[in-house]
């Protein structure tokens, strides 16, 4: 036993094969190319199969991590995907976009003395293996209950709710406002980080399970929440996302050449404008691009701009590297691809030419003061440190707010002071009977997996309601 543990320790973490930075910075193909079977078996063998696994506690949806990894070591990929599906409807997505370093892998015992087991890479491997070589056999579905549920929004939380409830035998319809399903997975996360084909295949999987999907349905406009109940739905889940872009509110922000990250990424991802003119939606191509903000969305925007052919792409952020909210892997990838970081820098105004097109941005240097409410050190402007930065495209990626489209038309839905829906954190129940909510429209911008965790809890609560009552 001791000897076995020793071998495990000496086996290094299997590096994920990736496209080289100098090549991938100009293409939209996925950056990591995925483990081979050999990588996966070797990596899986590093797991200690802890009796009290920390990794599971770190997973917002409670995936049985040692369990699925053990099945990989036995070569039972069908067993492994079944195990994953029991807790996670979207493993191919989560394996790619979860912040594993602060979740499962952050609590991995192997990681205490060396590199954690590459749980995310293994999850991705199992899901990809099933998609490419799997039997296509569906997980079991309970017998029909005759209950109808409408899921509003087809992002990560909505898809989780749909997957959970359809398996419990309920009749589920997902309503999506865009013309394609997937929510932020499709309009927000770029192709090079999450190929859209994977999202569509996860959605197709849910449809094969029996969930119905309808696009072009703007709930709050095309149909109201109350009308859904009139149509005979027994419960409604709201997972509409945050979806209101925040701007800087500084002079010159409406110049041509300043876009919200939402607009820039939606053009690039959902509308596939990176293929323009093969597709009809254009996207501004910047020579000198500035991205404001340092979260995952900022990294996605910066790396997209580089791929579209920019000469320079700069991330401008008012705090320091330690406070950057993006996933470590994204910052690392951006760095490798030649994105420059202008830290402790904040814009004060934009300037343009006589045609109203952006030509530059005035910035101010910052220094870090005492910690603020977020626990991060507050940036304080350095007097007289103004300087100009030439740029012809600015992408504002400083977060999102609550989109009021649905909530405005549903007055009996209680909101907090920022306009997010008040929902019980344990059940997702809102103040309106028969209505649940989860994901970014409750918490504000967060991660795919947290939205899925909220969806999981809400699905359990909806199932209880449909079985026992409110």
């Amino acid at each position, binding site marked *: 036993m001791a000897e076995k543990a020793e071998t495990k320790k000496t086996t290094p973490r299997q590096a994920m094969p990736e496209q080289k930075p100098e090549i991938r910075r100009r293409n939209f193909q996925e950056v990591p190319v995925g483990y081979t079977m050999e990588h996966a078996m070797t990596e899986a063998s590093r797991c200690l199969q802890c009796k009290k696994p920390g990794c599971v506690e770190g997973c917002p949806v409670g995936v049985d991590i040692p369990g699925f990894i053990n099945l990989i070591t036995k070569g039972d990929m069908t067993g492994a995907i079944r195990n994953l599906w029991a807790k996670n409807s979207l493993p191919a997505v989560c394996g790619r976009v979860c912040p594993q370093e602060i979740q499962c892998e952050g609590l991995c015992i192997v990681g205490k003395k060396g590199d954690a087991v590459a749980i995310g890479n293994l999850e991705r491997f199992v899901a990809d293996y099933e998609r490419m070589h799997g039997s296509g056999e569906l997980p079991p579905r309970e017998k029909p209950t005759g209950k109808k549920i409408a899921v509003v929004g087809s992002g990560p939380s909505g898809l989780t709710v749909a997957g959970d409830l359809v398996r419990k035998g309920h009749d589920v319809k997902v309503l999506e406002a865009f*013309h394609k399903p997937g929510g932020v997975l499709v309009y927000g996360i770029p192709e090079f980080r999450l190929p859209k084909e994977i999202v569509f295949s996860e959605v197709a999987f849910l449809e094969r399970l029996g969930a119905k999907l309808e696009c072009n*349905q703007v709930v709050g*406009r095309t149909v109201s929440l109350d009308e859904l109940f009139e149509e005979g739905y027994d419960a409604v889940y709201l997972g509409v996302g945050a979806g209101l872009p925040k*701007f800087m509110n500084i002079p010159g922000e409406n110049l041509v050449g300043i*876009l919200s990250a939402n607009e820039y990424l939606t053009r690039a991802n959902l509308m596939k404008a990176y293929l323009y003119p093969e*597709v009809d939606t*254009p996207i501004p191509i910047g020579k000198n691009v500035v991205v404001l903000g340092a979260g995952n969305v900022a990294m996605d925007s910066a790396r997209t701009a580089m791929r579209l052919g920019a000469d320079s792409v700069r991330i401008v952020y008012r705090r320091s590297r330690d406070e950057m909210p993006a996933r470590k892997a994204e910052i690392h990838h951006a760095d490798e691809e030649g994105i420059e970081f202008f830290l402790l820098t904040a814009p004060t105004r934009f300037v343009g030419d006589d045609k109203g097109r952006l030509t530059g941005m005035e910035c101010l240097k910052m220094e870090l003061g005492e910690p603020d409410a977020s626990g991060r050190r507050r940036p304080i402007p350095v007097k007289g440190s103004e300087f100009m930065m030439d740029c012809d495209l600015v992408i504002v990626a400083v977060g999102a707010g609550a989109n*009021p*489209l649905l909530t405005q038309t549903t007055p009996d839905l209680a909101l907090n002071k920022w306009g997010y829906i008040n929902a019980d954190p344990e059940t997702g129940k809102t103040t309106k009977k028969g209505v649940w909510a989860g994901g970014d429209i409750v918490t504000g911008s967060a991660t795919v997996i947290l939205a899925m965790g909220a969806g999981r809890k809400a699905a359990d609560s909806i199932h209880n309601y449909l079985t026992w009552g409110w």
Partner: protein
Amino acid sequence: MFKIVQRKEMAGGTIVLNEIEAPLIAKKAKPGQFVILKANEAGERIPLTMADSNPEKGTITIIYMVVGKSTAIFKALKVGEGYQDVIGPLGKPTHLEKLGTVVCVGGGTGIAVLNPITKGLKEIGNNVISIIGARSKDILILEDEMQVASHKLHVCTDDGSYGHHGFVTEVLKQVLEKEDVKLVVAIGPVPMMKFVSKITKDFNVPTMVSLNPIMVDGTGMCGGCRVSVGGETKFACVDGPEFDGHKVDFDELMRRLQAYSEDEKKCYNDYCTLQQA
């Protein structure tokens, strides 16, 4: 697919009418609201304010001018064919109120959007005077419909080929001098709305304009359609599309509408070359 049940070419084929099967949208649509249309898989999402809706028949009507590749693709769609995606109704409906005498000013395809609003203002009991204009007689649309929707109709052409020789603003000025006008609704090209708003400001008559900036989603997500109204940034898709004409920064709007003009020109030319080949 959203099937086209009626198709009509107007103004010598430069303007096209499509009546489209969209029962859910037709049930909800009110004057002043818009839809987003996408013709096919590679298509662009194009916002267009509806010219009519028929809840019984389950159809909506759009009238658009062919200005680029996307609208050229729309034009190529025949009856029985259709749009891959139609999303709506979007935006806030026009606030219709009985005020007394109101003036409806329309130019180009703006007349199509103005028509249901004019009808609504008349039905609610206003005295409606309408002024519509076009560059010349052969590209003037919906004269008969506007005649029916209004108590009095003035027609103007820039080249004098029909009606008053000159701009709608000249006739508007005369009407404002004579009548006690409570509201002006102006829908058309941005310069027209700008100059109408300038004149009505001198007369201190509240003015409503309907804007059609560049947008992607139409649900408040992208912020591409932002306009400055009274110094504040508004999203035309959810806060509009109608705004107080006295507060809109029309110059900024015109510049923002030009954001992709180079791309659009090239794309359209390439498309036309391809069609001819």
